[in-house]
């Protein structure tokens, strides 16, 4: 070794060092240093991760770091809003402010009331009855008035400007900016401080939070698959159920931290029990993680391929979930039978169902499909309301795919939501499934502060049924013909 070194030195002495060689001499000790630093930072990183995030997740405790983070973010947002408003006033810009009350004020009058009003105003000032050839008394003197179209016309244009349905399928507009590009309404450069803050936000979210969350998510999912498969080998019994519960809760809690989800559970005394069906409003696939990290449920759904399928198949080894093949989903009787069989077995976990059938943007609750309400069991309603200031949880499945959506989720500030467990409900005497479903829906909407709509969430993709138009036509015909009958009677 020494001989070689001496020979090298001899060579080096004889000729001048090329720049590459010079760099080589410097890089190699630098290389070692770099490797050491990386090694140390990884170790520190993982230790911190373990201590502050994974271990609390396993035991279900919380250090309160996330809430502190949320409070500080709110302060930053407030400052940013004030700054934007002040900046806009100085530069005399018009700020785009989405009005929380809507674009127009609608009059909630019905067809009958409005037609009576129009006709009354049309003929009341006509006291002499000069041009009118009708002989009937009062406002229903003419069967058809050309002004009848005013009602339909105005309603039609009102719905073009602002309707109740289409706005439920896009993300809710925020009242003030939350430093994310995706919800930016106004020109970015109001002040350098704001732009710097925004830039800092981007760096923090994509370079620090995103990798952290991805690590956690991968950990959570891997642990879930591995542990549930292991538990699957145990014989059925109390031990298996106990372990399965613990494993599921632990992995979901890790996933919750992977999204930096800050969840507040209300009325935990009403948590769903075995043999019941839990129904909730649907905003995103994350709803499942949020509910399942606080209690154990049997999931219902279609078997997918790929990673999702792997997870589903391993979960069902540990405890009975209800997964359907694609072909079975269409068979409503089969679905109902499997659900009621599960519900009758009191040792099985409560079923988690989202009766809307599709993701809605968390400003309203749309029609509940009656399938799950036809099964004879107790319904445990749950209301989930997200706070949109920290990150929008709504999955617009026509615009974004699943991967894109998860990326959005993991690069938002946080997911903040409230979960209310409502008291259990049962179908009453003389109530059919649809009425029961509407009653449950109204309770959920009331608790979550959401608008209760009768429209079908399926309108996201499909056309509205003709029967609704036919109802309106029938109503109008009754007004026309009704007056005719009155006249013939009198």
């Amino acid at each position: 070794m020494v001989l070689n070194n001496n020979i090298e030195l001899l060579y080096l002495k004889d000729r001048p060092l090329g720049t590459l060689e010079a760099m080589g001499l410097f890089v190699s000790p630098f290389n070692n240093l770099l490797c050491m630093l990386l090694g140390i930072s990884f170790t520190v990183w993982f230790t911190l991760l373990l201590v502050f995030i994974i271990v609390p997740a396993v035991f279900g405790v919380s250090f309160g770091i996330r809430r502190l983070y949320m409070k500080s973010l709110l302060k930053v947002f407030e400052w940013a809003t004030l700054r934007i408003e002040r900046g806009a006033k100085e530069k005399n810009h018009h700020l785009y402010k989405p009005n929380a009350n809507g674009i127009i004020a609608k009059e909630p009058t019905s067809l009958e009331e409005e037609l009576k009003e129009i006709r009354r105003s049309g003929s009341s000032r006509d006291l002499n009855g000069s041009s009118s050839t009708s002989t009937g008394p009062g406002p229903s003197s003419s069967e058809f008035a050309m002004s009848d179209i005013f009602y339909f016309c105005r309603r039609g244009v009102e719905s073009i400007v602002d309707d109740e349905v289409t706005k439920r399928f896009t993300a809710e507009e925020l009242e003030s900016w939350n430093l994310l590009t995706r919800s930016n309404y106004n020109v970015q450069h109001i002040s350098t401080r704001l732009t710097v803050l925004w830039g800092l936000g981007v760096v923090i979210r994509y370079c620090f939070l995103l990798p952290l969350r991805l690590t956690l998510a991968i950990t959570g999912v891997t642990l879930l698959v591995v542990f549930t498969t292991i538990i699957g080998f145990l014989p059925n019994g109390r031990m298996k159920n106990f372990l399965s519960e613990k494993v599921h809760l632990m992995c979901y809690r890790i996933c919750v931290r992977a999204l930096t989800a800050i969840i507040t559970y209300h009325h935990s005394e009403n948590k769903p029990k075995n043999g019941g069906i839990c129904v909730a409003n649907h905003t995103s696939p994350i709803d499942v993680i949020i509910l399942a990290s606080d209690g154990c449920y049997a999931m219902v759904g279609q078997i997918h391929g790929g990673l999702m399928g792997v997870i589903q198949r391993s979960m069902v080894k540990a405890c009975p979930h209800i997964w359907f093949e694609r072909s079975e989903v269409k068979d409503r009787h089969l679905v109902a039978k499997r659900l009621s069989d599960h519900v009758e077995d009191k040792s099985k976990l409560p079923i988690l169902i989202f009766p809307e059938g599709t993701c809605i943007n968390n400003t309203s609750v749309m029609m509940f499909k009656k399938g799950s309400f036809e099964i004879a069991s107790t319904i445990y309603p749950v209301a989930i309301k997200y706070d949109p200031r920290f990150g929008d949880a709504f999955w617009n499945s026509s615009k974004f795919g699943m991967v894109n959506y998860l990326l959005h989720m993991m690069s938002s500030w946080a997911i903040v939501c409230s979960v209310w467990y409502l008291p259990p409900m049962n179908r009453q005497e003389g109530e059919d499934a649809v009425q029961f479903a509407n009653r449950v829906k109204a309770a959920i909407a009331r608790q979550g502060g959401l608008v209760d709509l009768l429209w079908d969430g399926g309108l996201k993709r499909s056309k509205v049924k003709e029967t609704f138009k036919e109802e309106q036509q029938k109503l109008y015909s009754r007004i026309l013909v009704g007056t005719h009958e009155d006249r013939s009677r009198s």
Partner: protein
Amino acid sequence: MGSRASSLLREEDIEEIKKETGFSHSQITRLYSRFHSLDKGENGALSREDFQRIPELAINPLGDRIINAFFPEGEDQVNFRGFMRTLAHFRPVEDNEKNKDPSAGEPLNSRNNKLLFAFRLYDLDRDDKISRDELLQVLRMMVGVNISDEQLGSIADRTIQEADTNGDMCISFSEFIKVLEKVDVEQKMSIRFLH
């Protein structure tokens, strides 16, 4: 997302639309956001399908006629200017507008223009007359299958009889105005746009 769309509308365009229609700045930006959210094809113009996607409009018996009113003769696309021009008919009539300079032309939301909008819902072929057939068509749209042809026919005949003053068995625009002279058109054909 509708929110970012507001930055695609230039200040000059907003000023022009303000002058033509009388909407305020914030109303125009909010309506642009709405226009953008209806425009699924993101090509800056709305087609008939974009309107029909609104469920409340699709179940309106006169839905198709109303959609038609937005599209100029023979065209299949309506841009934002056209959209605003049609919506301007439904602006409420403000008192201070009545004192405006008459040489600036009649505002889009005058009583006359509102009546013209309604007239055009009946008068499909734009020949400035509502014939018996055209009246029957609109009646049929509004009542569906619930009234027989004969009954509907007699309703139409009676209506034309009452309105027709020059005996041509059609209702012209001036006859239309006369029939509705007592009706509070300004209120019934106006939408309260919030500021």
